[in-house]
């Protein structure tokens, strides 16, 4: 079949401008597709990673703005199967400019091992130093931070700033950008309010998570601060719910872009094949079978589609690499990363665009009466 490769190549270069423009239009649309489809993958991965977690999260039923009393902590610790409990306060500070925001939370230093699966470094220093903090790698890269550096966060919710020393990093956290510092430092700076926005609870078996969640909620039922407890996956899913509609919209827009360019590619292929009707008829008259003609025409379109797909994927992958440093500016649940399966999916879509855009006009041309195509009726 390699002997037909030259034929395919020559036809692709027949109208270089049209071929290049078609490839570029497919590339642009598939770049958009790859980007938009990649956006939700991080959130989906985060949920998948937490499905077998032995952690659960308790919050007040009234919402984030309302904290729970610190006194809940020892009471939760007495519930069967509970191994550890850590209070967590959402501080929400700003680093330098208002645009330099990332989630910052304070937790109990002695319970930091609860998140040992997040790839924490500098844990010992964190336990020793009151102003210590651990910073996620995304934040470290974005602001060019380094371990040992002192930083100041300006309070937005609370009327005080915190001055922290980076003692370690979070390499595999649930989101690429956030910061953890010590709750005792927060309590001191805030005037010992004795609060926690969440209690993170570790149990001895993931199977008992629903049972323990129910027990916690039961214990604080009818109190002034009732809790709503859920597995880590469910709790994160709840937060992601607000993002997910945008994620779905992104996926939908990606598909719209693909359908639109599919129609454009189909029109281009139809025009290209229509212009070559008599040539196709000549080829058939000298013995090329219909399926051979169909294969040649579809191969051309497939090459155009895959070239566009490869360029679109390459640009998406390259740009994401370059701009990944500022990824956390888009929010904690968005990662600028094109996963390999999205690359494969995009190339698959490119192949489908190539195949389907040419198939109908190519089949019609391959089946059309030779005499009619050559207008050889006298």
């Amino acid at each position: 079949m390699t002997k037909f490769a030259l034929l395919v190549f020559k036809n692709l270069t027949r109208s270089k401008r049209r071929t290049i423009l078609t490839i570029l239009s497919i590339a642009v649309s598939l770049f958009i597709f790859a980007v938009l489809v990649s956006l939700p993958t991080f959130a989906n991965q985060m949920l998948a990673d937490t499905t077998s977690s032995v952690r659960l999260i308790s919050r007040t039923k009234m919402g984030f703005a309302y904290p729970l009393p610190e006194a809940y902590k020892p009471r939760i610790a007495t519930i069967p199967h509970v191994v550890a409990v850590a209070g967590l306060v959402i501080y929400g500070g700003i680093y330098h400019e208002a645009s330099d925001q990332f989630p910052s939370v304070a937790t109990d230093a002695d319970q930091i091992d609860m998140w040992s699966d997040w790839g924490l470094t500098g844990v010992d220093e964190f336990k020793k130093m009151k102003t210590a903090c651990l910073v996620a790698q995304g934040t470290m890269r974005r602001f060019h931070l380094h371990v040992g550096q002192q930083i100041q966060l300006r309070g937005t919710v609370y009327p005080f700033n915190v001055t922290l020393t980076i003692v370690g990093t979070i390499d595999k956290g649930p989101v690429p950008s956030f910061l953890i510092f010590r709750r005792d430092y927060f309590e001191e700076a805030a005037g010992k309010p004795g609060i926690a926005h969440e209690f993170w609870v570790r149990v001895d078996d993931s199977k008992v998570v629903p049972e323990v969640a129910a027990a916690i909620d039961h214990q604080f039922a009818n109190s002034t601060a009732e809790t709503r407890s859920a597995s880590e996956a469910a709790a994160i899913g709840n937060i992601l719910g607000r993002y997910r509609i945008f994620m779905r919209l992104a996926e939908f827009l990606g598909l719209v872009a693909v359908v639109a360019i599919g129609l454009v590619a189909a029109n281009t292929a139809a025009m290209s094949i229509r212009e070559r009707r008599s040539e196709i008829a000549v080829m058939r008259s000298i013995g090329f079978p219909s399926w051979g003609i169909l294969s040649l025409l579809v191969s051309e379109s497939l090459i155009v589609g895959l070239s566009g797909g490869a360029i679109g994927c390459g640009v998406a992958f390259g740009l994401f690499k370059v701009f990944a440093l500022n990824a956390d500016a888009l929010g904690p649940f968005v990662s600028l990363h094109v996963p390999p399966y999205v690359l494969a999916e995009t190339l698959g879509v490119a192949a489908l665009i190539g195949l389907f855009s040419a198939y109908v006009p190519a089949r019609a041309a391959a089946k059309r009466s030779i005499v009619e195509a050559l207008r050889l009726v006298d």
Partner: protein
Amino acid sequence: MTKPQNNDGSSAVQLTHVTRTYKRDEFEVRALDDVTLDIPRKSFVAIMGPSGSGKTTLLNLVAGIDHATSGRVAVGGEEISAMNEREIAAWRARHIGLVFQFYNLIPVLTAFENVELPLLLTNLNRAQRKTHVEAALKAVGLADRMGHYPRQLSGGQEQRVAIARAIATDPTILVADEPTGDLDAKSAEEILSLLTELNRQFGKTIVMVTHDPRSERFVDTVYRLDKGIFIGAEQGGRTARPTHATETAA
């Protein structure tokens, strides 16, 4: 009128009671009406007649690119009217060389690549294909134009390349539709001389549709059609007749 022959191997083409009708809107056009004729092997014949007489339709049937509405078409002893599309495509590749009025070369391919096109359907390897192409282009006097694209050639040269493409696979029959129709007088003479040479030197059966009265002196036999009816065959004006031509026309 020529009588159909028995299939004794002396006929290149046999048409027996062939009718071809077309539908044009609500009208039925009878392009060929009960045509029966034989064309002997290794002969060079012209099919002539006024516009709309059915000569190109007849040529299309012989070339296997159209099918008869009724009747039998046998070429080289094979009844092509009974073949399906796949079979007839393969048959065309083996047995038919087609030459068109407007050359119909592929513009993005060089002369060499155009001539190589039908050879891609064979099992010949690259070197063998090259040998065939070079031989074909040499036979039409264009050995020095192999790398030229159609746009870089004159009309006469383009038609020569088309003839080289038609003979590259060494087909049984060469079918030419108005091969001189788009050429000036000098180029037309050259093409007719070339076809005569191919017939004489290589023994190719050549069936040519033409309006050009000059063609008559180059061919063995002229078959005349009018309004789809075969009205008779007459001897062409070729002076030095090939010894291998078998005359069957009346």
